[in-house]
């Protein structure tokens, strides 16, 4: 059977930002009644392609046809009216308005110009019931979880009688039950003939839901494939442009360290945040912190960095008792902390890559002793190359970088201080598989070079792959410390979390 004519066709799309070629000559088509996955690493151009399609950005070259007619959208409103609706990664709704309004704003049912609130609420309730969601639609959106907000966004998009629905990473903040519900909705819409463009970092989800995929790399088209004809390994290879050998290399477990202790925490604790814990980090050792979200992982990291004050216990660095009252004192002792929330707590988006990287070093030296420009350039060039930061342009604004590259900039900032203990809080969250492998390899290299690393991650495989020993947390308590030997698997860690380390 010949495929139906594409409802949407993009050909030769080019888009350039100052200093960055975001898209060059990309072709993309979307058939009605299919789920089409748009694949690529962070920074490959997925978001840009979507923003071009929805009229947020104007294109510099190429053409877009919708149902055979040339279109050039100048804004989201226009593309929406043409039948292209988008649900973005971050829920782009107004949290101060009610659920019903968020679905209908801009096209409220009216009589003689007067909004009919009752009818609007009734229709919103019906619409959400169609998505198996039974909530009070007159409550403000902010009173519901992110998952519900996502569903509301989809309900809005679908109700705008969309012919094309774009879902930009809708699943990144949903739990598995919610993902299933979303997929049910997607299958229903697909059956109604709606073309769905789906972006996700979760390969399993892509294989579960999509019919076809288009792969981008560095702003260029790699190709279009049927999902059933492309294996996962091949897909990843095409996305990152090389084989998975880099990842495989790390499969060997790191050899145990028998060096002297660097940081020793003894019954260190903070009321309400973390129960007293005892943990020793040796020189050149990678210690993994495993545990559920909110189990106290970040709290331990903040205590060791002096961002919070301990209420009990003692801390020794090099066998010498210390009190870390401020992060600055911790930095003087050679401790660096890469925070979990890179946007809010780490990077300054409107400064350049260079300025962001030298920030911590400058702070250490004090403002009266500026770092000479030549030293800056040398340092920055070295780390941009070492961490493979793309684009490799120190004068690029950090804002314009993709998530994975922003994370690398943050890492570079702390690495130029040459810390003895590097605390990494969720360094690989929300970044793609290639950048993840690079960061993991870097951690292994740093530890081989004698740097101690405290590695916090929600991904147990990753913790297991990198760590010499794993500290398991549960309910704000350190419940077990497990050496990473052959007997340790993710299953064992999960059991330890579940049982609270009693066995």
């Amino acid at each position: 059977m010949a495929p139906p004519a594409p409802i949407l066709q993009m050909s030769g799309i080019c888009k350039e930002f100052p200093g960055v070629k975001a898209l060059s000559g990309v072709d993309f088509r979307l058939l009605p009644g299919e789920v089409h996955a748009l694949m690529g690493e962070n920074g490959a151009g997925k978001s840009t392609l979507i923003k071009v399609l929805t009229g947020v950005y104007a294109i510099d070259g190429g053409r877009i046809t919708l149902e055979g007619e040339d279109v050039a959208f100048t804004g989201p409103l226009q593309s929406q009216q043409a039948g292209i609706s988008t649900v973005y990664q971050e829920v782009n709704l107004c949290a101060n308005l009610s659920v019903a309004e968020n679905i209908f704003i801009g096209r409220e049912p009216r009589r003689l110009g007067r909004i009919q609130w009752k009818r609007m609420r009734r229709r919103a309730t019906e619409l959400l019931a169609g998505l198996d969601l039974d909530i009070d639609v007159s409550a403000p959106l902010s009173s519901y979880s992110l998952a519900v907000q996502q569903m509301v966004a989809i309900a809005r998009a679908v109700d705008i009688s969309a012919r094309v629905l774009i879902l930009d990473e809708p699943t990144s903040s949903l739990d598995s039950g919610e993902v299933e519900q979303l997929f049910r909705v997607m299958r229903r819409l697909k059956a109604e003939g709606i073309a769905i463009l789906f972006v996700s970092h979760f390969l399993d989800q892509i294989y579960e839901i999509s019919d076809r995929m288009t792969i981008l790399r560095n702003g260029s088209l790699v190709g279009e494939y049927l999902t059933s004809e492309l294996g996962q390994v091949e897909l990843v290879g095409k996305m990152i442009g090389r084989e998975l050998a880099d990842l495989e290399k790390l499969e060997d477990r790191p050899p145990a360290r028998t060096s002297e202790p660097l940081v020793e925490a003894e019954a260190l604790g903070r009321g309400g945040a973390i129960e007293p814990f005892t943990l020793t980090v040796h020189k050149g050792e990678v210690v993994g912190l495993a545990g559920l979200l909110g189990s106290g992982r970040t709290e331990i990291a903040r205590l060791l960095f002096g961002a919070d004050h301990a209420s009990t216990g003692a801390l020794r660095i090099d066998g010498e008792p210390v009190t870390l009252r401020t992060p600055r004192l911790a930095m003087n002792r050679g401790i660096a902390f890469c925070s979990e929330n890179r946007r809010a707590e780490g990077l300054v988006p409107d400064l350049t890559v260079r300025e962001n990287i030298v920030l911590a070093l400058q702070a250490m030296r004090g403002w009266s002793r500026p770092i000479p420009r030549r030293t800056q350039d040398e340092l920055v060039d070295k780390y941009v190359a070492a961490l493979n930061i793309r684009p490799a342009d120190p004068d690029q604004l950090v804002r314009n970088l993709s998530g994975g590259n922003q994370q690398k900039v943050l890492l570079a900032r702390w690495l130029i201080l040459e810390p003895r203990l590097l605390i990494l809080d969720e360094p690989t969250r929300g970044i793609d598989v290639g950048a993840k492998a690079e960061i993991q390899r870097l951690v292994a290299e740093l530890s081989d070079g004698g740097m101690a690393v405290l590695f916090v991650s929600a991904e147990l495989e990753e913790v297991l792959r990198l760590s010499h020993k794993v500290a398991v947390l549960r309910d704000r308590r350190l419940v077990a410390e497990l050496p990473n030997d052959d007997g340790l698997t993710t299953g064992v860690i999960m059991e330890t979390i579940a049982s609270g380390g009693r066995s």
Partner: protein
Amino acid sequence: MSSDILTSARLRLPGRLRSAYIPVLATAGLLAAMFVAGGVRYEGFASGQVVLNVFIDNAFLLVVAVGMTFVILTGGIDLSVGAVVALSTMVSASLMTDHGWPPLLVVPLVLLIGSVLGLAMGCIIHYFEIQPFIVTLAGMFLARGLCYVIGTESISITDPDYTAVAQARIALPGEMSVSVSVLIAVAVAGAAAYVLHYTRLGRNVYAIGGSEQSALLMGLPVARTKIAVYTISGFCSALGGVLFSLYTLSGYGLNALGMELDAIAAVVIGGTLLTGGSGYLAGTVLGVLVLGLIQTIISFEGTLSSWWTKIFIGLLLFAFILLQRLISARRA
């Protein structure tokens, strides 16, 4: 999953209702308390006419504050309102007294001038992406300066029709009466409340105050709405100026000095968040009444100087900003 969400929503419901209405209810409570306290303390205070006098003395402020409510709901600010009020009184007085124009021509012209000024500031704010604070500050100097181009002295209005309207009192039952200005101000407030709650323009105002970025991505006419609120504010300031000239029967470049701050204070005391997206027009009406009643109480007290008004307004503002902070912190 849906049943979990349902129960959690039900659990949150009472808190939600309270947090949305707390500021307005607090203002209403404060107003009632002030009225009762005044009634207990001063003879002749607890009468309907005292309340109506608050309206009569503050009709122009109410109209200006209504315009300001629109602007603040989008998360913006309009500092030009006081100067536009002064300019409007000056233009009215000059045209009627010095040039003999009829009021029926002057009033629409004044309203047009105010609206165009607002429209221009709205366009600059939106298309050049400049902070409303700076743009309306410039607008304030411009309007204030234009007053002195017209004249540096106070001009009194002697047009017989205009003075007749100014002095007319509409009798209400119970030997009470109000001025024409009050009727206009109440009509404006009613119309504004309707627009904010029942029209797309009004809901877009709230949406932009909630998140301008989201509003844009949801396909709402952000440009049109933002320009509209400054135009509305300009119109309301001009109308406020007309009411002010009815109240004083004169035009003067130094009229309404600092009125923009009174209007902002009234809106904030009325429970509207300065960050936008949350608040009610009813709150603004209550806020104006609270400000007016403070003045009334101080004049009844007799021995207190008028600067005590400012001191009380200052204290109230602190209290209400803290209240807003507490509520939004609890929401988060």
